[in-house]
Structures are given as structure tokens and as C-alpha cells.
């Protein structure tokens, strides 16, 4: 397939792997004393397992799977609130498909749909806006979630709704941003990260400058990466070379897609529509300062939180993780998924207990689906 096969060429991959092997040994990293590289984005986690890159890279490299799966880090209290909105009479609740199965404390949206709520799977917030246009007597709510990748499309949709005066449309805003959790992880005294593979699609929107603090303040290298196997291998090599050379820089491996300055039109739309929340809860990580977005007062009419009287942060809303769930420890690199006693036992992709088993981009789900320890055990 054009423009994808080129980035999956086994010969080129072997060449990169040989260089990775060499630089790893130059650094002196071994299985006992590995370099820890965090891939922040869930898409990267998925690709690493799908192509078996964790097996192909030398044992001196350990991948720590970051918090970059938006469905995984969605707090259960917000799922409960989405169900509450969907249960209101006259509401059509629209969501991306992968949020349907996320368990709340009582039920998932999928169960709410089976119980009679009008919940529609859409592929874009604009589809939800179209539903609002065609159903003027219904209140159409879009479940806005995701990182900077999806944040602009929600912002454009709100601007469009305002321009068209579609007052029966609103957004339940759960958008979050990538840099604050990275900072939180770097401030965690237990974290021993040596470098980062930075998110590709997020950076397409925000550019690479928001990561400057990682190099400047924490002295760690970060390389923004694409999603094909060769992209990832090259990015890992670039991180390793920085470590070997004692550099800490923000580099852009994915320059064919990511401009250094990002996408100005998207950034402007987001500035117009959102302001930063003081803090927002991340499932498995707890509350993180300035990590969430809410809708500005000028667009209050399109804010489902205000329309339905759901404010973020009511103390009674916070929900404890299920007993024994160790997603937080996986996300901060303290343990690998199979070291969690619930992994593969009570916590399975079909009956996820913790956040990381929920979406295919979650570290536990990727680990489970594509083998990891199960393959070793089977052989």
C-alpha cells in the first residue's frame, strides 16, 4: 500500500535495529540496568505491540507505557455523568464508539443504550451537529473527549453551532491536554525515565514547542514520532543517541506531518472556545493541575455541564478504583501489566476492571491482545 508499506520495510527495520543495538551497548544499558523510554501516546503503545517491536529491540531498552489513551484515563465519575445526561428525557447522546464500553460505577453507555437511552455512535462531532439540525425538538449532546488531536474538531463544531444558532446542541467537555501529565510524571520521585517518544497527532496540532520544558527543566530528551514501525524505531534511535551524547533536546522525527509550530488555525479555535480547568481527574493517576479544558463563558449555551447542572469537582463524585486495580502503577512504570494480580484473571478486555484494559490503546489491553507474557507462557 502506497505511503504505508514504505514505513514497514523489513530491510530498513533491520538496519535501524542494528544501530539501536549498537547505541544501546555504547550507553552500557543492559537487561539489568536498562534505559527507560516512555512512549506517551496510546497509538504508539498499540503499534509497539502490534509489530512486536518490544521483542525486537535489545533487552537494554525498557518501554514505559504512558498515559496517552484518552478513553483509558477518563474518570469513572465522568462516565456516570454521561449516563445521567443520556438518561434525561429528549436527549440524543452522541459518542465516539470506543467510549461506549468504558465501565462507569453503575453502567457503561453501551448498557445505558440497551436500557433504552438514545445513544448514537458518531465518527465526528459534526455528525452530532447534523443530528441536532435534523431533530430540533431534541437536545443533542456530544461526548467531547480526547487530547489535542480531537480538541480542535470539537471547538470548530461549537463555533459552527453558535454561528448557526443551534441551541439544542451542547458538548459534554472532557478534553484533556498532554503536557501537564508529563510534568506530573517527571515530578514523581519514583519515576526513572531517561527519555520520551512524543505523540505524533497531538503535536500536529500543538507543534513541538510545548515540550521544551522536558528538555530545559528536566534535562530529558524527547522525539516526536510517527506511528509506523520505522517511525518508531528511528525515534527510539534518536532518543538513544541523545542519551549517549549527553544531549536533552526536543526533536521532530515526524516532520512530514508535524510542523514545529503546529496548526495555528486549530490553536486559535481552541483558544477561542476553551479555557483551562484548575485541575482534572485522570483515571489511574488522580487529579492533575491544569490538565483539562472547559468551555468558555461566551459559549456557555453549548456547555452540557451548565445545561444539565453537572459541575466538575463535586467531592461526592470521586470514585475509588476497583479493589486491587494497579493501573496507576503501570502508568507510572512501577510495574508491567502482567505483574498486576488482576491482569488476565479478573481483568480482561471483555470485562475490563481497570482503565488500561478498556481501550485497545491501553497498555494492558495491548499487552494482553498481542501476547507479551502470554506468548512466553504458551511457548
Amino acid at each position, binding site marked *: *500500500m502506497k505511503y*504505508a508499506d514504505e514505513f514497514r520495510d*523489513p530491510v530498513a*527495520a533491520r538496519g535501524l535495529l542494528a544501530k539501536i543495538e549498537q547505541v544501546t551497548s555504547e550507553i552500557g544499558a543492559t537487561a539489568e540496568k536498562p534505559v527507560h523510554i516512555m512512549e506517551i501516546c496510546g497509538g504508539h503503545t498499540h503499534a509497539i505491540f502490534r509489530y512486536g517491536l518490544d521483542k525486537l529491540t535489545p533487552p537494554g531498552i525498557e518501554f514505559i507505557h504512558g498515559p496517552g489513551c484518552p478513553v483509558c484515563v477518563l474518570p469513572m465519575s465522568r462516565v456516570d455523568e454521561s449516563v445521567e445526561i443520556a438518561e434525561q428525557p429528549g436527549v440524543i447522546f452522541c459518542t465516539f464508539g470506543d467510549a461506549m464500553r468504558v465501565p462507569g460505577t453503575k453502567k457503561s453507555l453501551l448498557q445505558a443504550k440497551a436500557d433504552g437511552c438514545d445513544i448514537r455512535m458518531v465518527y465526528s462531532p459534526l455528525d452530532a451537529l447534523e443530528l441536532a439540525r435534523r431533530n430540533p425538538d431534541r437536545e443533542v449532546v456530544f461526548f467531547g473527549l480526547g487530547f489535542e488531536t480531537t480538541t480542535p474538531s470539537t471547538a470548530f463544531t461549537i463555533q459552527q453551532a453558535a454561528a448557526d444558532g443551534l441551541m439544542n446542541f451542547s458538548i459534554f467537555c472532557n478534553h484533556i491536554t498532554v503536557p501537564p501529565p508529563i510534568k506530573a510524571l517527571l515530578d514523581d520521585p519514583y519515576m526513572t525515565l531517561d527519555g520520551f517518544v512524543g505523540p505524533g497527532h497531538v503535536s500536529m496540532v500543538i507543534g513541538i514547542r510545548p515540550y521544551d520544558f522536558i528538555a530545559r527543566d528536566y534535562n530529558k530528551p524527547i522525539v516526536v514520532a510517527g506511528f509506523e514501525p520505522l517511525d518508531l524505531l528511528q525515534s527510539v534511535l534518536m532518543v538513544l543517541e541523545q542519551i549517549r551524547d549527553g544531549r536533552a533536546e526536543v526533536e521532530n522525527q515526524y516532520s512530514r506531518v508535524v510542523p514545529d509550530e503546529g496548526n495555528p488555525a486549530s490553536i486559535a479555535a481552541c483558544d477561542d472556545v476553551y479555557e483551562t480547568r484548575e485541575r482534572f481527574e485522570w483515571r489511574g493517576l488522580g487529579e492533575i493541575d491544569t490538565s483539562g479544558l472547559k468551555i468558555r463563558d461566551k459559549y456557555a449555551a453549548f456547555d452540557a455541564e451548565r445545561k444539565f447542572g453537572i459541575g466538575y469537582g463535586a467531592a461526592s463524585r470521586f470514585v475509588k478504583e476497583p479493589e486491587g486495580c494497579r493501573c496507576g502503577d503501570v502508568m507510572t512504570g512501577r510495574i508491567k501489566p502482567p505483574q498486576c494480580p488482576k491482569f488476565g484473571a479478573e481483568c480482561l478486555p*471483555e470485562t475490563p476492571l481497570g482503565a488500561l484494559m478498556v481501550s485497545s490503546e491501553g497498555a494492558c489491553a495491548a499487552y494482553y491482545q498481542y501476547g507479551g507474557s502470554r506468548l512466553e507462557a*504458551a511457548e
Partner: protein
Amino acid sequence: MNDRSDPGTVRAARRLKADTVTLAHGGGGKAMRDLVEDVFTSVFEPADMEDQARLADAAMREEGARLAFTTDSFVVDPVEFPGGDIGKIAVCGTVNDLAVGGAKPLWLSAAFIIEEGVEVALLRRIAASMRAAADEAGVRIVTGDTKVVGRGSADKLFVTTSGVGVIPAGRDLAARNVRPGDVAIVNGVLGDHGAAILAVRGDMALTVEIESDCQPLNALMEAVIAAAPSVRCARDATRGGLASALNEIADAAGVGIEIEETTLPLRAEVKGVCEILGLDPLYLANEGTLVLFVPPEEAEAALAAMRATPAGRDAVTIGKAVDKHPRTVVMQTLFGGGRIVDMLVGEQLPRIC
């Protein structure tokens, strides 16, 4: 079977006049009789018009022959799509369920749940398509039923087909028969049906031209069994795709299965759709694709026999059964890394067949 070579003239007097189906067409009266006779039985031409089909076939009387019986419901949305329609997959699906078990399919029933308001012209197209698929597979639709339900109680049209076939004496195709060393062969490209349905639904604004692979596989199965009599088992890779079929076989036989990513036959368009939407083609539904296992010494003969049939032109070896990692399917990726190919969790796509 009765000879009804010219049903058009016989039925002309009762020709259904309505353009759309109403609840009256399910009421048991004249309107229903007109619908059933004009739209369905005049096309399917069952042997007689009793409530039950009375059947005889020489194959049933052979010593050691066994009867095979299967049923399947179809709710695909949309009901017509590139490469087929709900009627064609209702016939092919049931024919293929029989064929992969080693049976020669003979007779089908067809039951229709019709939503009020459906165009009669649509039903006529579906019925003609079913007759054509039945003729291609060499089976007869011998009995059936229609029900009409109110608007919203069904979505346009649901079809259930049951099928009866005969397994000749001595044939034993079953997943438990697979042994380490046996070779896995597929008859053609993967995922066309799932990708075609996805594209035609228009939700994704994809403009690709992919046709469903919907086709009967009984002629192909007979050719394989004749050329490779020790064929162990076959599975049609419908819902859940090749991944699910292979996992079922690994489970039943207690063997491991190894496949090679580089050998999997995929159209560029299907790969493209999967890339864009983040789907795995191993889990996409097929309606005319099967995987079978043969002992290595018969693999060449099986491949050649498959390639000589229209449904098997692109047949290719994709892997083998192994004694490592029992009950687990492992794929060697492009780079030589191995990964587990698990059963599908949840649904990749709803209402695909």
C-alpha cells in the same frame, strides 16, 4: 420436483399491485397470499405448495450417509451492497455452513421478517438474487415463511435460512482432526465483505470500491475433498474473520497455529480502509472465504484443486498447525516478531451479516 418452467404466465393473474408492504400483507388473507406467491414462491419454485416440503434424494439412501442441518439469521445493514444483498448472503451463508462440514447442500428454507413500508420492488430484487445464488450453488429453496411487522419493529428486512444437506459415508471434517504439521490454506482475499459494508454505509465518508466476496463454496469444497481426501477440516471465516476461525480450530484440536503476516492475501483497498479506521483485517467478516487444514503431503493437490475453481483462484497457504503454544494462534509479523492473534472481543462492527 414439479416442472414450472413458465411461472410468469401462471401467476400473472394474481400479480401483486402494491408498491410497498403494509401490515395487510402479513394478515393471512389475500394480500398475504399475493405477496408470498408473486414475490417469493413464483421465483423459488418449490416442489409443491403444502406447508411442509417433502423431500427425497438418492444421496440420503446411501449406506453410512448422514444428514446435515443448519440455520442462520441475517440482519445485514444495508440490505443491498456492492457484490450482494441480504438474500444472497442468506443463501450463501447457509450453503457454506453445510459445505465446510463436508455436506452436499440440497434444500433450504427461507423465512422473511419484513418491516411495514418496504418497497415490493426491493423484495423482488432480493428474491431474484436468492434464486440466482441457489442455482449457482445447486440447491433448492423448498419452504419458507413471511411475517410483516410494524414500522420500527424490524429494520427493512431480516432473513433466516435453514439448510439440509447430506454428508457422504466416510467423510469426517472436524476441527478436532487437525494435527501439528497440517497446512492452513485460504481460498482468497480477506476482509472484502466487512470492508464493503463499511464503505457502503457511508458513515466514514470513504470512497473506495470494494465488493463483498459473498459466494457459495460448495463446489470448491467438493473439488478439494476429491483432490485431497484427507482434508481435516474447513471453516468459513464469517463474523469475527479469519482470526476467530483459526482460534476455534486451535481450541478444538488442542494445537497451536502459526501464520505468516507476509502471506495473508489482502486487497490494497481493504488494507487502506483498515489503516484509516484502525481495524485489523484478520477480524473483518467474509462471506465467501474459508480456511482449511490438510496434511502436508496433500497440500499441493488441495491448492491446485482450489485454484481450478472460480471461488479459489487466489488460494494460498498462510501457515500451519504446530505442537508449540497449544490453543493459541501466533502470527509472525513482517519483521519476524511474533504476536498472539486472539479471538475478537466485543464487536468490531455491528450488523455485518
